């Protein structure tokens, strides 16, 4: 599934034009991205949380040459799925 499929769903469900639907979906992700860029987390109830984490410097190794290198400090994005989403994905197993 891609953004185009989500746009199609929005178009059918809300009755916005395809162009408007595309703009709205683009805007949802754009707001989420700017918020995360500012270091703020995004909490979507029933889906999960997107959290920006600060990682410290650490020593790593180039697996090909064995050379020790420093992996610089950085900010990364993590997604923690909600219990609801995890259960939904496993529902076919639980039902069986």
């Amino acid at each position, binding site marked *: *599934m*891609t*953004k185009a*499929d*989500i746009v199609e*769903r*929005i178009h059918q*469900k*809300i009755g*916005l034009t395809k162009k*408007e639907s595309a*703009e*709205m*979906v683009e*805007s*949802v*992700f754009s*707001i*989420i*991205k700017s*918020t*995360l*860029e500012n270091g*703020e*987390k*995004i*909490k*979507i*109830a*029933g*889906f*999960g949380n*997107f959290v*920006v984490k600060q990682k410290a410097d650490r020593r790593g190794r180039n697996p090909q040459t064995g050379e020790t290198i420093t992996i610089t400090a*950085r*900010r*990364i*994005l*993590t*997604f923690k*799925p909600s219990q609801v*989403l*995890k259960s*939904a*994905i*496993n*529902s*076919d*197993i639980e039902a069986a």
Partner: protein
Amino acid sequence: MTKSELIEKMVETHNMTLNLKTSELLVNTVFDSIEEALCSGDKVEIRGFGSFTIRERNGRDARNPKSGEVVPIPPKKAPFFKTGKELKERVNV
């Protein structure tokens, strides 16, 4: 930012197109679509944002730390998010 704040922000930004009710339906539809795709085993790719896939976790035997009893944990599926290139770079400042 919570989902309701995102819904409100969408209304503020697009007050000619959306009201609170349609904005709520819109945001819910976005995340419901992703969830449904994942439940049917499909992966979801959002350009510039990231992709959602399902990872299979093997079953294992764990131990109840209190009683010492061995508890089998069955195999399960876990949702996994891989951050897209653009967002990865924007977050890392």
